[in-house]
């Protein structure tokens, strides 16, 4: 199966919050922003980003986790709660602000809903799409000289 990831286009997002609510509902059965694994980042009334896991491979969060709590499985970065101690090293190195702290220090991140992401199903504008990974372009983050993937390719081997 071809690896699929989320393609994010904040310019198309109208901050309707459907993805956030659908995500929380899919994960925990309730509508609660803090339990969602996706965040719409609004600054001065403008959507500047949709913060959600891009399932990098190799991934900084997986590299940095000393607890074996993050691993790549079928192209998806999966967080195993039972091994996580909430040290939050993964949050410190995530380029996308995609790992968040929920209640009681539980960390949450996108698992792509097992291949049928709830956020994509409800997004009315096409700001979040589920596409084969090779079609998804990584934007340069925070004025970086290289894209995240370029960086990861340099370091990730070995």
């Amino acid at each position, binding site marked *: 199966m071809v690896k699929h990831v989320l393609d994010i286009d904040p310019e198309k997002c109208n901050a309707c919050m459907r993805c956030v609510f659908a995500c929380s509902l899919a994960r925990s059965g309730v509508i609660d922003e803090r339990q969602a694994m996706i965040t719409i980042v609004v600054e001065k009334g403008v959507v500047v980003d949709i*913060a959600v896991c891009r399932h990098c491979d190799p991934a900084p969060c997986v590299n*940095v986790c000393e607890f074996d709590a993050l691993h790549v499985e079928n192209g998806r970065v999966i967080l195993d709660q039972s091994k996580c*101690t*909430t040290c939050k*090293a993964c949050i*410190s190195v995530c380029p996308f*602000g995609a790992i968040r702290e929920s209640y009681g*220090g*539980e960390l949450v991140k996108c698992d792509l809903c097992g291949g049928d992401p709830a956020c994509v199903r409800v997004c009315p504008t096409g700001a979040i799409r589920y596409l084969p990974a090779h079609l998804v372009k990584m934007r340069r983050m925070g004025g970086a000289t290289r894209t995240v993937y370029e960086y990861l390719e340099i*370091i990730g081997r070995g």
Partner: protein
Amino acid sequence: MKTVIIGGGIGGLYTAYYLVKYGYEPSNIVLVAAEWPPYSKHRLAEILGEKLSIDYAYIGIYNTLLDKGVKILQDVAIKLNTSNKTVVLRRNGEITYDNIVIATGGKPFIPPLKGTELKNVMTFYDLEDLKKLSRIPRTARVAVIGAGLVGLSAATALNKLGVRVTVYELMEDILPGVIDHPLSTKLEKYLVSRGIKIRTRSRVEEIIGGKTAREIKASGRIEPVDIVVFATGVRPNTEMVRGSGIEMLRGAIRIRRNGMTSIDGVYATGDCALSHDLITGKEVYRPLGFIAAHYARIIARNITGTRKETRGIVPTIYENIGGAHIVRVGLSLKEAESLGLSPTIKCEEAPSYASCTVLQDQAPIGYEAIGFSNKIRNKAWQIYYDIHTMFS
């Protein structure tokens, strides 16, 4: 081959986990833990501030270890005898080992001041402390001594509960050693705006009271107080290795890059031991959970027959301090200086965000940031990789 692990904290727990993962026979592992089930100290402040059940603190993998057949002894090690490879436990007596892993952790440090023995003077370190603090009335006035990560997490959690909090810090800035002056001042301003009183350059001299603490005297100033919480750091807990001949430095166990102490077959990890800094190669005392787990993995590799040495640690820290996101990767300016480097710092600022890069000979060796928006946006990952490229 029998491996005895002393300590049920992060270091001990994850040594057992990695041993099992790397194929070591679980029934040959004895884990000696004073507290059981194991929990994460990283979650205590969150549980306090959100009034959650302490069940949130427990770390899930202990069930896996039990299911696999790892032997757990709820006990405390008293004395290590490396010449005949035995360790004396308080309740279970003497047991033998082929390999032993010392993961006895740390203990909270309270400075030797008058009045620290009074009732209502405590630390914020373990589940008992959490239980005590969750019971205090909202009208209480709390003095938190020490503005490090633990102190500020406790202060913001209590502030969330509506408790009046004053933080006393000896140094001129809060979060000393974690972030540097330009960012500390921003955090301080933010916390003050949230209603937390902060007294920097304030030396606590005495806790005053009869049986119970009533006042605190700091830098000559006396203020009323109902609870005093010391968050003044952690020291290695190494009593059991006293007289064993294991090499120590400043009270902590020295380890080699494979996690072994100066004596073959004896390993150590976590808050009882030193670790290696990747950038300078120096031995440092950094009582952080992920470092304990880092060496746990290395030790498990070596015990299961794969020779492995650490290249050293690049600190990777994130904390949410009452809504302020703090990120630190690599060395801070102050830490770099204390390790003998002559670094410079370059800072930039946006309305909801500020960051500094610490440089040595133009090369980044550290990055720190503070953010107030709902997204943690930073270049920490780049600097993390730059450091690894440059120093590995």
